[in-house]
Structure formats: C-alpha cells, structure tokens
C-alpha cells in the first residue's frame, strides 16, 4: 500500500472533508441553540424532563423549594425500594411535615415557574456567557473574550501548522527527514512569548479578582442591602433584616427559594450552610461561591436591571442537588420598599402572636439554628481585604 493518504489528488478532498466537519459542527451547534424554548418543551414531553418519581413527589411539594428527609422515613423508603414497590426509584426526597408549613409560608404570594426556575430570563444571542447584569461582570466578560482571542489565535496557528505538517510530510521513497535535534533559539522564542502572554493575563486579572472576592462592602455599610443565605439540602433560605435594619429580630423577612433585592444597589450576602457544601451560582451576575458548613462567607454583587434571574447550586450536595434552584427577584427600588415593609409587618405580627420575641423566621428552624450558632472563626478572605 502507499504510505500516504495525502496524495496530491486526495489532498484537496481531505481538506474539504476536514473543513466540512468543522463547519457542520458549528452550524449544528448554532441551530441547536436557536431552537426556541417552547419547541424544546414539546420535545422534552410535558413531564418527562426528570425521573417520573421525582416529578410525582414534586406534586406534593412546592416547586422551587427543596425537601428535607428524615432518617426513619428514609429507612422505610429504602425498605420499600428493595422490595420493588411503585416508589422503587428510591428517590429519598420526602416532605418533612414539620417543615412543610414553613415552606408554604415562605413561598406564599410568590410564584416560581412550575417547570424550572429563572425561565423568564431571555436567552441572549451569544454562544458563550449568558447576559451580564453586574457591574464587575463586564470586566470578566472582556477578560474571557480576550483569552478567547488569544487562545483562539494560538489554536488556529498551531492546528493549522499541525494540518500543514500532516498534509505535507508523508514519506516519499528515498527521502529522509531533517536530521535536527532541536534549536535553542527557536525554543527560547516559544518559551518567552507564551510566558509574556501568560504573565499579561495573570496581571490583568489580579485586580478583578480582588474586587470581586476581597473588596466586599463591610457589614452595616450604607446603601448596601444585606442578605443572609442559609443553604441546606435542598433549598436556599434567605433572610432580610426587615424595617428595623437588624438581623435576629421579630421583623426579619425570611424567604425560601426566592431572594429579593432592590435594583441598582450593592448586595452583601453572608452565606452559611447547615449540612453539606453547596455553591451559590448566579450566572447572570458572574457570582459563584461555595457555601461551606462551618464558615460564614461574604459575597457581594450589584444589580443593574429589575427582573427574575436563576440561582443555581453548583456543588454536588446530594440526591436533590439537581433541583436546588432558586430565583433572584430584583425589584424596582420603590416596589422593594413597599414589599419589604409589608412582609416585615406580616412576619412581625406572626412572631409576636406566637410569642417568639427573641428570634425571627417564624417556624423556620434554619434561622433558629443560624442565630443560636454564631461562628467564632472569621472568614479569612475578608480580613485580608481590609
């Protein structure tokens, strides 16, 4: 057989084939992304997007909220599972009766899209990052696209050279390769140039990282709305200070699965987890931070547009991880004031009626846990920023 697949006649054919593959890949991906969401839902089938059992249980709980499992029930379910009864998928998301009422309270008056959270966010036309609404996000996106350009050019140059070699250097009878063992000058060049580029990228991002992760507005600063976030399997709990501006009082406003903030203001979050590691991911605001049990980690961002945005759990947290979503609701400033005042009043009435002056959050145990377990170790990152 001939030693070359790239003869002068086959070369153009091979090139066209390779290019065709790449183009087909690009177009296929574009077409797939442009398919409207409604069509996709049909493609998914009304209820087939998740395991049927989890869906079944979904009917019994409020969408957008997680559930807590109890050990006894869990064991019971496992028994059932082994015996192959209808609940045999072994989904261990059970409703905790003691918590269920609270969930109902927390989500009352708000509707989370029945099928998924944050469905309201319009898909932007770009192939890469979703639309950004945070002030530091633009710099991140610029950095991303800068790296994309640099690596894109490097990719095209190196792969073009690779293709060139493949098409040019097949064995010809009687010919020998260059007898070369290397070239120090060349190697120096291709060490120094990437080094310079990498140092440039490293320098560019240092300030950005500092701004995003370390220059967190301190607690109690003006014009900053503070939100406490308590993550648990498998729901996000949020708490606002209410009209008195203090946490741990009767007029605090706890919410489940929805985080309410006013537009145009800096948001300072303190995040704690009661059980395992979760990760607070706000794709439209370029925020991601693991929520670590035993640490109270501060996070900040600001908002530039009112609307509803998805909050996702990005760190595997167990069986219900896949459903641990929430919604960020960004209100207009006035609307937020009215909303907060009304909610604050409502919770104050509730708490006082039940004679619970010392802790807030109605029956939500998580806030009782939060207030009765202050952390003695301060998060180190914040200290270094000051």
């Amino acid at each position, binding site marked *: 057989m001939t030693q070359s697949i790239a003869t002068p006649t086959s070369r153009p054919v091979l090139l066209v084939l390779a290019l065709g593959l790449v183009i087909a890949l690009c177009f296929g991906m574009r077409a*797939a992304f442009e398919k409207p969401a409604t069509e996709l839902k049909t493609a998914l089938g009304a209820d087939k997007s998740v*395991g049927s059992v989890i869906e079944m249980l979904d009917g019994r709980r409020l969408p957008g909220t997680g559930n807590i499992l109890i*050990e006894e029930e869990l064991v019971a379910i496992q028994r059932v599972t082994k015996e192959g009864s209808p609940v045999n998928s072994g989904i261990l998301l059970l409703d905790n009766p003691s*918590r269920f009422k609270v969930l109902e309270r927390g989500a009352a008056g708000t509707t989370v899209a029945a099928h*998924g959270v944050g*469905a309201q966010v319009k898909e932007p036309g770009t192939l890469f990052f979703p639309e950004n609404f945070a002030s530091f996000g633009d710099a991140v996106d610029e950095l991303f696209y800068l790296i994309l350009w640099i690596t894109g050019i490097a990719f095209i140059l190196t792969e073009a050279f690779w293709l060139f070699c493949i098409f040019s250097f097949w064995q010809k009878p009687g010919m020998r*390769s260059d007898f070369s063992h290397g070239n120090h000058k060349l190697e120096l060049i291709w060490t120094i140039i990437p080094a310079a580029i990498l140092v440039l990228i490293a320098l560019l991002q240092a300030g950005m990282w500092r701004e995003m992760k370390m220059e967190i507005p301190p607690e109690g600063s003006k014009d900053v709305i503070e939100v406490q976030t308590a993550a648990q399997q498998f729901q996000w709990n949020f708490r606002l200070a209410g009209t008195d501006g203090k946490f741990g009082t009767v007029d605090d406003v706890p919410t489940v699965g929805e985080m309410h903030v006013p537009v145009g203001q800096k948001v300072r979050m303190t995040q704690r987890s009661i059980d395992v590691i979760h990760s607070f991911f706000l794709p439209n605001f370029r925020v991601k*931070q693991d929520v670590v049990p035993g640490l109270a980690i501060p996070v900040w961002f600001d908002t530039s547009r009112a609307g509803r945005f998805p909050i996702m759990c990005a760190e595997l947290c167990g069986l219900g991880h*896949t459903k641990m979503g929430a919604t960020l609701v960004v209100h207009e400033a006035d609307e937020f004031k009215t909303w907060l005042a009304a909610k604050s009043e409502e919770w104050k009435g509730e708490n006082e009626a039940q004679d619970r002056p010392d802790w807030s959050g109605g029956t939500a145990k998580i806030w009782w*846990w939060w207030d009765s377990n202050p952390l003695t170790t301060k998060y180190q990152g914040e200290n270094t920023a000051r």
Partner: protein
Amino acid sequence: MHLMEATDFNVTTTPWLVVLGLAIVMAAVRLAAPKFYSHYIWSQDHKMIGKQFLVSSLLWGLVGGALAIGVRWQLAWPGTKVPGFEQIFGWADGGAAPEHYNIMFTMHASVMIFFVIIPLLVGAFGNFVVPLQLGAQDMAFPFLNALSYWLMWPAFIFMAFSFYVPGDGAGAGWTSYPPLSETMLGDGQTLWCMGVWFVGWSSICGAVNYITTIVKMRAKGITFFRMPLTSWAIFITSILVLCATPVLGSAVTMLLMDREFGSSFFVPAARVVSDAGQVTGTGQVILWQHLFWFYSHPAVYILVLPAMGMVSDMLANACRKPIFGYRPMVYSMAGIAFLGFVVWGHHMFQSGMNPALGRTFMIATMMIALPSAVKTFNWLATMYRSQMKLEVHTLAALAFVCMWIIGGLSGIFMAATPVDIQIHDTYAIVAHIHYVVFGSTLFAVFGSIYYWFPKMFGRFMNKPLAYTHMIVTFIAFQFTFFPMHVVGSRGMLRRTADPYYYGNLQGMLPVNQLMTIALLVLAAAQVVLAINFFWSMFAGKRCTDRNPWNATTMEWNTPTPPVGHGNFDLIPVAHRGPYEYADPNAKEDFTPQFAPPAGEPARKSVHV
C-alpha cells in the same frame, strides 16, 4: 449504614454467583493446566505483570465506559431507563433516579482514573516497556511488582461490590467532598474509600520499584540523558506518585474514620443533616479539599506525563525524525512535575479558600502552561520537515498533539480566576479534563497498544480495524466533547441529573442529544478495539521481526516476544541517544541505540 438493621443487608445474588462461577472455573483450570497459575497469575515477570495490568484495565474501561453512557443518556433523554442498567446494577429505575445518576458519574470518574488510566500508563506500559528500554532483565523488585498488581484486586472487589450494597454505591463525586461523603447513607462510600486506599498502596509499591529500577538498573551506555522519554516520564511520574499518594491515603483514612469511627477531621461546627441531631465537630471541611487536591492535582500529571513520554517515542518513530529538543522535553516534564505540586489550589478558587491564596495559585497555574507549551511546540517541530510513515500509532500520536493543544488552551480559561468564577463546576471543566485525559492520554494509550502489541504478544493487530477505531474515535470524540465547552460557559452545571430543571438551561437539550449520540458512536469504536485486541492476541498476524517499526530504542533489541523471565538474548549496550532517526551518514533511516558503531564487533549473546 448504622441506620440499617442486619436484615437490611440485601445484597443481590448476582455477585455471589459470579464469585462461585469464578471459583469453579479456577479449579477447572488448575486441573487442566497446572502451570497456568504460576505463569499467568503469580508471575513476577514484569512483562506478564504489565499484561495483567493491561487486560484488567481494558476490562474496567468497559465498565467505566458503560457508566459514561449512563450519565450521558440521562442528559439526552432525561428520566428514561438506560438500556441494560436495570439488569446489570439491579436499579429498577434503570439509572434515571438522581441518586443513581450521582453514582454513575462518581464511579465513572473513579473507575476511569484509578482503574483504567493510572494502571494503564504506569502499571501496564510502565511495567512492560521501562525495563526493556533500560536494557534490564527485570524490575528491581519483582515480588513488589507482583504485589503492586495484586493490591489492585482488593480495590477492584471493593469498587465492584459497592454497586450491590445498601445505598447502591458511592455518589459524592470522585472528589468525595465531605460532609456529603461523610453523611452519605449506605456502604458504597465506605467501600469506595477502601478501594482508593488499596489503589494508593499499589501505586506506591509501583513507584518505589520504578525509581529503583531506573536509577540502578540501566544497561551499559544508557545514561540518564540517553533514556527514551517514556522511561523519563515514568521516572518523573513515580516521584510524583511517591510524594503525593501518601497524602491521599491519609486523607481517605481520615474520611473513613470520620464515617465509621466517629472522629471529626472534617466535621464542622454546628452541622445538622436531615433534621438529625446537631453534630458539632472541630474539623474543617476545606481541609479535605486541600489534602485531596494535593494528591489529585499531581495525579492529573500522573495521568498525562507517561502519555507524553509514550507519544514522544511514537512520534519520533512515526516521523522518522529525532525528537525536537530532547533535553528541553525532559526539563519541561520535570518542570510540570515540580509546578504540579504548587497548583492544587486552582481546583478550589470558589471553595471558600482565602481568595488571596487564589491569586498565588493562579500565577503558579499560569506558569505550568509554559512547560506544556514548550512540549507542544517541540512535538510540532518534530513533525516539521519529517517523513511520516503511515501506521496506526502515527495517527494516535498526531491525534494526541491535536487534542493536547485544545485541552491545554482551555485550561487557561480556568486558570484565570475571574473567568473561573463563571465556568467552575460547569461542563467547560468536563470538556477540559476529557480533552486532556481522554483526548490526549487515552489516544496515547491506544497508540501504545498498537505500537507495543507485537512486542507483547508476538502478533500484529488487525490494521483495517485499527484504522477504523482510530478515525471513528477521533471524529466522534470531537462531537462528544467539543460542544461541552460552549454549553459549559453558558452555565450548564456538571453533576446535575436534570439540568433542564433550570429554565436557562432548557435550550441545551438538543446539543446534549448530539453529544450523547456521538458518545454512542465513540463507544462502538471502543468495542472494535476490544474485539481487535483480544482477537489479535490469539489469531493476529504473526510478528517474528525484532524491530517491526524500525525503531531505535532498546526494547526492540529483544526477541519478539521476549522469551521467558529475563529479556535479552544479546547483551544490551547503548551506543547513542534514543532518537537517532534520519542520520544522513547511516545506511538506513534509523540508527538504534543498540547498533554497534562501525568497526566494532557484532553483539554478543547473553548466554556465552
């Protein structure tokens, strides 16, 4: 597990039947062929141990691949049963339930990393090739070598059984971050810990052996800088293994003690899981991540450095040209290994680690791209003005270079801390690791199988099947993994059983279906490899040529296959560097290390 009563221990009968069947087969073999065990099982010959590693890793590769199909099946057709999973694993939902999804990706990664890639590179090819390349008759410690293989078996058994115990397996991710991995119900996670612990032990036994062999047992003339790059890579990798694996062993032991004996290394203050009573420990959750990644980041280089070495050997052979910049190749491998120890924090940028540390790790990570870039350019320069010979390992080496570029470049996004905020824990990361570990490493392994198969078994593999396998794998691979970069940067989370729960991810279903279909093609191609491998082992075209690829390194100086325990019938002496191809003064286009210089007497037999 402490929640379960004794009667709940409801192991399906399948594994026991398998054990029983195996016992019967083993007894029958003992009667029929008395030498079978001493030759194939309890052998202390490095060649046989290498083959043992190779075969068991390839078989585990089928398991890992099946689990990958399970994962991708759920992403393409959520909530439907994966064909066969109900029967194999006894899951009534066929892998559709989230906890089974968690188990599938956890075990896919664990099996692929601990049972396939590491044993294939270090165990199989390291064992088979290194002593031959050094001109040694065996490894320094043959018994330790056999031990390192047989220590894999407890791990195999633990991991395999973990699917059949209450809880159905380990499902906290291959990273097994506590507290999730500590509070996980069922025994799967415990068995996982035990399995990893034995793998670590096996790796350490191997590493000690390689380092000793390479330092002490090189034949006359093989100086350090005349060693082929495969041997260099295994040498550097072994140092990594020796320094990093004990840390993993300790971490896993701590995790095991936290799970089973009530210690609190990783138990934080005021933990409440599932409304159970509050548990207050004085441990730190992030400590596990530091310990784990202190091993597992170097492990990434354990997964790729040997592949780089093997590709360098194959590429020089395929291009009929000396490797471009032999010494810089060695130095850059050493540089990668050294820097590999100071970059583990880049897995933890969003973990709650002090962000000031994040910056340090970011700079170190950027720097590790440098030696990788040098290696890439050197491979490309090796290809330039060469005379490539079309063989299957040529395709593999070329594919490696192509995909290593993609895997390397996508790493820069992750190293840039602000960009990492967006893509951490998304499919962009999945794409990156698969371009590095599948696209690069596994292609190098495929190439190595085709390249060293004649030396191992004295037979060639079937060429048309091999070309089909390589080409289909290459194309299907791109369609399986390249779109992941895009869906990942758009926010598609990894380790999420049903990403379409999120409205902003619903549009990604068709792309995911495309990727899954491509994966099915990819998997079919691997079946071709498996058939080709096992068929050729017994019925392939015979190879009697000592040096079928006209290569230059010492392993081609042995009879094919090397007969018996002890490798060389001619005294191995090296007269030059490892990649003397295309010397214009030589008669042929390759001058092996072992070819005596003009005027010197012919090679002597070992048995004088």
